[in-house]
């Protein structure tokens, strides 16, 4: 496990293509009738390359659907890449789902042996660590009971305990640290730190950006299957945060340093707050109230709209509208006149943010806090709404 061994994991030009079948034909008849033409390709990963040196802890971050979990599965060997290759040195244990492969009719003890063998441990090796596994999971009195009588917490504890005791050189973790009660989580983190001290390699997929900074030496941010940023965790986490304005329900909360605070946003129709769905073509206004807790030079207020599938559909800001707020102290009310609603149906979520001119500092961000609905007109199939005026004149 010395540094001279070279990288523990090499990811070389890895691409992964998923076939999306529109009606998921899984029977022969369906497949024969539909042929292969009805599939769409989705590139979950595109030519991703990086090395993980032996002993390093690397975080994979990204929005939902960015490909980070797919990449972890490719590294684990569960999915075979469509292009490129992954080289691993040493035994890998993947914690993708704790207790995967537990069989409900078997006892805890039998499941430990079965699970350990899936993680590559021989029976004799398992004999050696069996007592430690049981002790770590705190299940001494339950090992001869079928696991179908276990609580979910017990299952999780047993699963994690087996996984960390198989003595892997490379540990792949997919958000499993977010399970179990707090005491157990703390012990899991402890265990991960011990692993780091022992010089083992760790690849961690997580949404908890704090964990990235606390635990990892380096981070990779994926966006739509491509490496968007790689390097120091602080830098990568910031790159992640900067794209938040236009992305992702997962971070549906507030953040910011609060020099300027958003007091609230209201969606208006004819100067009154919305009380029901809009109709295509109606005039929509977004009103934002701000309060500066200390004087700030020329902040930028921006907004973004996402549809139900969390696609970014439209965004704007004060700069784009040619408005400078100047020095802000006290309260301000802004109104973004959005004009006739071009949507023809569906629900939309509104993100509001206030940030500094140089884009480096987020004062306050309310991620997808507000929403409005547009009513689909009965019997119409329009993709979007355009105002139509008709003029008739005699020739």
């Amino acid at each position: 496990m010395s540094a001279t061994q070279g990288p523990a994991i090499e990811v070389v030009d890895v691409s992964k293509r998923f076939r999306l079948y529109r009606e998921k034909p899984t029977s022969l008849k369906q497949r024969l009738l539909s042929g292969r033409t009805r599939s769409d390709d989705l590139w979950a990963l595109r030519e991703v390359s990086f090395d993980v040196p032996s002993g390093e802890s690397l975080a994979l971050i990204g929005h939902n659907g960015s490909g980070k979990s797919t990449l972890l599965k490719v590294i684990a060997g569960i999915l075979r890449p469509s292009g490129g290759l992954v080289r691993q040195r040493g035994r890998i244990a993947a914690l993708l789902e704790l207790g995967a492969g537990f069989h409900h009719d078997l006892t805890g003890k039998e499941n430990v042996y079965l699970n350990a063998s899936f993680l590559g441990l021989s029976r004799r090796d398992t004999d050696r660590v069996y007592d430690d596994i049981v002790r770590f999971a705190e299940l001494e009195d339950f090992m001869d009971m079928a696991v179908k009588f276990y609580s979910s917490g017990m299952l999780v504890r047993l699963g994690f305990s087996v996984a960390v005791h198989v003595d892997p050189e490379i540990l792949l973790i997919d958000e499993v640290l977010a399970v179990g009660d707090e005491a157990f989580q703390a012990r899991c983190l402890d265990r991960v730190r011990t692993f780091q001290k022992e010089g083992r390699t760790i690849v961690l997929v997580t949404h908890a950006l704090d964990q990235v900074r606390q635990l990892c030496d380096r981070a990779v941010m994926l966006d739509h299957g491509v490496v968007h940023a790689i390097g120091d965790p602080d830098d990568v986490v910031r790159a992640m945060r900067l794209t938040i304005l236009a992305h992702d329900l997962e971070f549906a909360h507030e953040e910011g340093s609060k020099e300027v605070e958003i007091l609230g946003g209201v969606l208006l129709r004819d100067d009154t707050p919305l009380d029901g769905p809009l109709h295509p073509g109606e005039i929509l206004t977004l009103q934002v109230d701000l309060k500066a807790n200390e004087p700030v030079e020329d902040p930028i207020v921006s907004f973004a709209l996402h549809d139900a599938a969390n696609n970014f559909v439209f965004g704007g800001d004060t700069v784009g509208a040619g408005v400078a707020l100047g020095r802000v102290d006290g309260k301000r009310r802004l109104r973004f006149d959005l004009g006739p609603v071009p949507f023809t149906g569906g629900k939309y979520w509104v993100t509001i943010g206030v940030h500094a001119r140089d884009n480096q500092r987020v004062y306050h961000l309310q991620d997808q806090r507000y929403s409005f609905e547009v009513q689909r007109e009965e019997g119409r199939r329009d993709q979007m709404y355009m105002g139509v005026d008709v003029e008739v004149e005699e020739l």
Partner: protein
Amino acid sequence: MRRIRELWLYREIILNLVRKELKVKYTASVLGAVWSLLNPVVFLAVFTFVAKVLTAPIEVYPVFLLAGLLGWNLFSVSLTAGSQSVLGNANIVKKVYFPREILPLATVGVALVDFFLQSVVFLAVIVVSGYLFVAEVVWLYPLAFVALLILSVAVTLWVSAVNVRYRDLQHLVALGLLVWFWMTPIVYAGGQVEQRLRDLTVAGVSLWHVYLLNPLVWVVFGFQKALYHSSDAQQVLPSFSAGELALALGVVIVAGVVLILLTWRVFFTMSGDFAEEL
């Protein structure tokens, strides 16, 4: 070769899976492993009756039937359970890496355990009842067994992989096994088939030769030749000598190994997509 080495590294899983399957199969059932024996007993009862009613009797029918039936069970159970082996372990396949071949191989392993259990018990009963085996031909038994095992592995590998993508293969397997069963001289005498088909030709091809294209026919002939030697053996068994059968079984084994290499390749190619197709 590398696949085989990797498989060896993970051999522990196969044993554990077989153990698990057996445990799950037989716990929470009152009769336990007796079920494994009950299947041939019921078959024996039914076919003894059918044979009495329909065809010329075979002198020691239990020995004749069980010689072929136990082997057939190994094959059909492997295929039936094998077609579900990857699907049924979806939660493991999606979460853990291991050579996926292990899953169908473990189902063959389970069938193998049943086969040995049945064989030991029934052969013992037969011997105790006073039916003695003849040493000069018993060596055909392991040969037929090896051929059977290789065929079972080859076909099970294929079925288990293809069934992930085309789920209706499992229905086809059930139907196919039914046809295959009756195309194999298990409940009826191969010697009779030889007599009746030898002179029947379609487009100049002897139907008997067509019948012999089924590799399981040779496996069953092998088992029967090894075990059955009552006074009517001349009529009940086909006219092949032990040497000829051994040669044919050798051919089946070689062909079976080639088939394994082919189906293994198919399995490996398809296994890269298992985690997403499940």
